[in-house]
């Protein structure tokens, strides 16, 4: 094949794709060329000069182009005038690389010696000590003794907060610019840069607040020295003391693979606690990056306010009780009210928990009254048919492919998906963004469709209709142009969310988008790898909740039930009007989220939770569950990848894993002996749910060699992100992969007359919630309630930038800050930093006089 070239590195021949850099080609045959500034995920710059090697190319006759040969028949090589950087030179056929010669050794020794003339020898107190590329490469290639016999090394600041999250030690910085380039090239947040020159070259933050990026933590992973450290882990532990446990992030439907680094702490009473969260390489999911929410929001696992004992209400008070007492009571009460029970689940629970929860209701109590407490996004059944096909990897999308993103702000809701769509756009994919308002993805979009409030469905319907016909004058109408670009794409991936839409509207949206994917332009865009629908679920395992049948109308595996039960809204109504007598809430806080006013006329309320939530405060029985870090389980991502996480820390108090509690209740309601391990529950799932057939904990733990080589011994190359040794997960196949899917009927949604300012709640990554509140390190970054609106609308309301306002939505009032933002379309108000609000509402905004104390910039 012509796109492969063969090079010889230290006598070993290797065949690599054209365009491969010498340093990568060497890495593929385990020839370590040391680097500091080069990183396989960044563009090469060749500034640290550590990777200098001898590179020879065959000499050719200028006239004939024939390879010149020596007398002995060997190819004559031109090694140029000196050493060349292996990180900037691209391989070419016949190239010969020498990495072990004396000049190369001398050059490496020299660079190490130079770096150490200004790098402090404070390895003993450095957080990177022990996993430091500079340290390792010095041991491996250094001279062993410095000839820099001056005691006055340059002294620079050692404690520079670049923001609340990241600290910089200027003295340790070796000016490799990895962090700067990561922020600029990879995540498009160029908020840090170099300042000054020469030995005074130093990193400064250009944003206010400092280092304002959702990705800042990743810079500490790729920093080859201890110059960048997180506020969370600073001086927390030495790397060799940490025990690493594979896990999966619990905050969004991306399902980033993480590693929990734990250590026993005297101040935690000798318990193992999570010291830091590190990314774990999974090139299918998150590559080697995680967002700062995933990195810093782990403190809830160790929070002192965690529930430790089962609580039972006696004489109006919740008092500690034994597990047997609590479970007996729960089982008894649920059976007593068999005809009037309902279950509400949160979508952060594992598949095992959710499966047993629905089993309790369907098989134990004979009720289908089970739903997600906080339903935002519909379409799970559609996704089961035309979801992103198995074998897909968003990294493979590029020129000729298309991504459609509808009604979601990926940057705030699922940052890693934003990153991957952005990178697809940079590789040449067509990105179409359809939303009420501009989002951060617009910058990378080829087509931006901003529909008017209330016109989401009609716009998408029009898009689908336009995509059917072969068009001649595509570019006249932006919608037609977008439809044309989408339908002509080789591969198409569609993301959809719920911004500004009600649950019912998202259902129609999912069906419309499925129909778009089903439009045949040749093959259609379903059932093939890198094609299909991805729902931007609100939480980490909403997909799993659909799969497990936590739905009034679907049993596990999307089997329709004969008599659908009550939906969440009906359950809330039933609680209020007394038609429901007992309610089981697990991993959700409907009262705190404003979905349920109080316990209404319930006879019995049981809440299974980590914390004493507002709902738990009203409960008759509160069952303390274990957080994800204390137990094992599986989550299913929005890409329908089932991923396994492991037990990292010992349980808090007397808490038990959710699945175990449910299994014990199930036993009490007559469902037989409980499974004694999560893996066995999963085995049962694999039997019952056809989509999960063939999966077990062992197959989920399967790994394969990934490129680039990250983690392991080679910290210098990919940074300290962990190697994946514990499982890449498995994607389950949607219907379209094996059968033909018919077009979906889409029910016409009632058109609601919209007048006046329309208010839409938009997502912010750090929106206050039960879990995030436990991480003090993020408190300064929390999204405060804010409204954004266009200048004309603001003026009409008498509002200006930095004013305070009172916003009433669905009879809940928020005090918010006011931001005048010309990016916001007229007639629209964006409300962020508040709990989820479905659909559009007519805005009721009142200016607050300045007499109200303004929170100063804390």
């Amino acid at each position: 094949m012509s796109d492969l070239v063969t090079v010889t590195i230290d006598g070993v021949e290797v065949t690599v794709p054209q365009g491969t850099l010498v340093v990568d080609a060497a890495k593929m045959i385990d020839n370590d060329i040391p680097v500091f500034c080069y990183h396989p995920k960044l563009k090469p710059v060749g500034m640290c000069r550590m990777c200098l090697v001898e590179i020879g190319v065959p000499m050719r006759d200028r006239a004939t182009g024939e390879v010149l040969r020596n007398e002995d028949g060997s190819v004559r090589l031109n090694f140029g005038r000196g050493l060349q950087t292996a990180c900037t030179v691209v391989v070419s056929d016949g190239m010969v690389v020498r990495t072990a010669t004396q000049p190369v050794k001398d050059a490496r020794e020299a660079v190490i010696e130079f770096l150490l003339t200004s790098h402090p020898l404070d390895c003993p107190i450095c957080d990177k000590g022990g996993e430091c590329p500079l340290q390792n490469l010095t041991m491996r290639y250094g001279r062993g003794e410095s000839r820099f016999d001056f005691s006055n090394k340059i002294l620079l600041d050692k404690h520079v907060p670049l923001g609340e999250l990241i600290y910089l030690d200027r003295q340790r910085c070796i000016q490799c610019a990895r962090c700067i380039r990561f922020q600029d090239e990879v995540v498009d947040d160029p908020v840090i840069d170099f300042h000054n020159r020469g030995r005074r070259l130093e990193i400064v933050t250009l944003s206010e607040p400092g280092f304002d990026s959702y990705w800042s933590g990743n810079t500490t992973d790729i920093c080859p020295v201890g110059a960048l450290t997180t506020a969370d882990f600073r001086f927390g532990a030495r790397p060799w003391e940490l025990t690493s446990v594979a896990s999966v992030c619990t905050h969004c439907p991306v399902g980033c693979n993480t590693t929990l680094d734990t250590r026993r702490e005297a101040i935690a009473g000798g318990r193992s606690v999570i010291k830091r969260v590190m990314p774990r390489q999974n090139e299918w999911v998150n590559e080697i990056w995680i967002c700062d929410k995933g990195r810093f929001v782990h403190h809830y696992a160790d929070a002192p306010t965690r529930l430790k004992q089962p609580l039972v209400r006696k004489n109006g008070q919740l008092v500690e009780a034994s597990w047997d007492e609590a479970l007996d009571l729960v089982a008894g009460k649920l059976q007593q009210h068999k005809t009037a029970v309902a279950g509400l689940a949160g979508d952060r629970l594992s598949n095992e928990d959710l499966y047993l929860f629905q089993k309790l209701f369907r098989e134990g109590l004979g009720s289908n009254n089970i739903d997600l407490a906080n339903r935002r996004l519909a379409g799970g059944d559609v996704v089961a048919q035309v979801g992103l096909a198995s074998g897909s990897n968003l990294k493979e999308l590029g020129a000729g492919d298309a991504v459609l993103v509808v009604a979601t702000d990926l940057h705030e809701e699922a940052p890693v998906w934003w990153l991957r769509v952005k990178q697809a756009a940079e590789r040449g994919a067509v990105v179409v963004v359809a939303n009420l308002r501009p989002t951060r993805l617009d910058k990378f979009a080829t087509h931006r469709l901003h529909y008017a409030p209330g016109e989401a469905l009609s716009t998408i319907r029009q898009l689908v209709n336009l995509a059917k016909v072969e068009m001649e004058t595509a570019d006249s109408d932006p919608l037609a142009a977008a439809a044309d670009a989408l339908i002509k794409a080789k591969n198409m991936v569609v993301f959809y969310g719920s911004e500004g839409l009600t649950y019912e509207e998202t259902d129609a949206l999912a069906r419309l988008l499925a129909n778009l994917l089903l439009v045949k332009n040749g093959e259609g865009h379903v059932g093939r790898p890198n094609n299909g629908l991805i729902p931007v679920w609100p939480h980490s395992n909403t997909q799993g909740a659909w799969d497990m049948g936590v739905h009034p109308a679907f049993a596990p595996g999307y089997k329709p039930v004969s008599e659908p039960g009550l939906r969440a809204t009906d359950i809330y109504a039933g609680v209020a009007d007394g038609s429901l007598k007992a309610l089981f809430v697990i991993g959700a806080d409907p009262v705190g989220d404003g979905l349920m006013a109080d316990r209404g006329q319930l006879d019995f309320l049981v809440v299974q939770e980590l914390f004493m939530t507002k709902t738990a405060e009203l409960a008759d029985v509160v069952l303390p569950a274990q957080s994800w870090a204390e137990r094992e389980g599986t989550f299913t991502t929005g890409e329908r990848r089932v991923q396994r996480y492991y037990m990292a820390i010992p349980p808090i108090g007397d808490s038990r894993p959710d699945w175990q509690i449910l299994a014990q209740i199930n036993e009490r309601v007559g469902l037989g002996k409980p499974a004694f391990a999560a893996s066995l529950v999963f085995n049962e799932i694999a039997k019952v749910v056809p989509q999960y057939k063939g999966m077990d904990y062992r197959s989920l733990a399967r790994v394969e060699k990934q490129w680039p080589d990250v983690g392991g011994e080679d910290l210098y190359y990919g940074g300290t992100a962990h190697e994946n040794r514990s499982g890449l997960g498995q994607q389950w196949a949607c219907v379209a992969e094996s059968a033909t899917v018919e077009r979906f009927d889409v029910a016409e949604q009632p058109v609601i007359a919209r007048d006046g300012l329309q208010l839409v709640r938009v997502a912010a990554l750090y929106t206050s919630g039960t879990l995030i509140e436990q991480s003090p390190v993020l408190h300064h970054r929390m999204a405060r309630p804010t409204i954004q609106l266009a200048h004309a609308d603001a003026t009409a309301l008498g509002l200006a930038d930095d004013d305070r306002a009172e916003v009433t939505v669905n009879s809940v009032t928020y005090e918010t800050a006011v931001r005048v933002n010309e990016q916001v379309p007229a007639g629209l108000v964006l409300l962020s930093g508040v709990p989820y609000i479905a659909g559009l509402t007519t805005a009721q905004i009142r200016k607050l006089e300045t007499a109200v104390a303004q929170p100063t910039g804390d």
Partner: protein
Amino acid sequence: MAHILLRHRDIENIHELDVYLAHGGYEGLKKALSIQPDEVIEVVKKSGLRGRGGAGFPTGIKWGFIPKGPGEKYVIINTDESETGTFKDRELVEKNPHQVIEGALIAAYAIGARTIYNYFRGEYMDAAYRFEEALKACYERGLLGQNILGSDFSCDFYCHYGAGAYICGEETALINSLMGNLGQPWSKPPFPAIEGLYGKPTVVNNTETLANVPPILVNGPEWYTSMGTEKSPGVKIVCMSGHVERPGNYEVEMGVTYRQLIEMAGGMRNGRKFKALLPSGGSGPVITEEALDAPMTYEGLTPYGSVMGSSSVIVMDETTDMVWAALKMVHFFRHESCGKCTPCREGTFWMEKVLSRIYHGYGTERDLQILESVANQIGGRCLCALGDFAVNPVLSTIRHFFDEYKAKVSGAGQKQQATRETAVATAD
């Protein structure tokens, strides 16, 4: 002989457009516009004109690298003249600006650029004012802007002022600086001819190079090759400074010897004896008496281990302390190192420290070895040429004047070891 570049010395007020036009100004541009761009490149190629900034790359070939076809392209004039002892471009842009503008316009026409930038050294404010006036006059007369001289060729001209960084004379650093980035060079490839300013094909030419272009167009390439030597044709402005009687710019044909240059500048000051000269400001290795009869061409000093460079000749007489001279140069390069690549950032700093210690008499034999070793660790291993420039004065003075170093580290020159560390002052 009438000046070809420094024409203001023959014609008064040639910086005014009328005067310039009256003396054959913009005839070269007219000639260029009358032929195809490819033919213009061919003429420049034939003339053998080579880059006057120091590297000596053939200008016509450089223009020829620019991809043909539509798309934005740029011409950048490099007036970031920061080399020690160099002041030729300053005189050109200040006194004879139109010749530079005309040359740049011809370059723009040849490669199909619609925009020209002139990157000025930040300290050249006076020259820049004069230059901007010239630009204004050109716009008024239709020599810049839309449809220049009634042709299809349109071109805009912008001036940019650097902030006093030597490194921004390197073309990629200059482009970075022009784009608003930190003035640091990038590792080539990509070459500016393919991906330069804003990722578009870009030609970066020295001011003096472009000033050579109009007369070549007017008089033809044969006229140009009749001057100078075969491989280094044409004329060159030499900046004479140091211990000569009359320092200043001298326009000479290529190929004159350095001895002739010193004579031209009035000989050694106060009749002292010649000791050494730096043929290319701070960046070239020093040459001694033996090389004085070498011709001033791009290749002339190769046998003596030095280069012509930008031909800014700094002459030093017998009173000069060569260790001091080397220290001065190293201090300059340490100060100007951009800090991007390790050997230059750390090595220049270390060299200055050791050299300073030796100069002040606290050095030892070992320091001499370290100095040479550090210099060798920098040379040839840096991202751009600055690192190589920085070691040139050190290695060449060690080669030619080892005795002076030797004297500093032994015998009477050497001071007490005890104060060795503390007494050494550095700029940090």
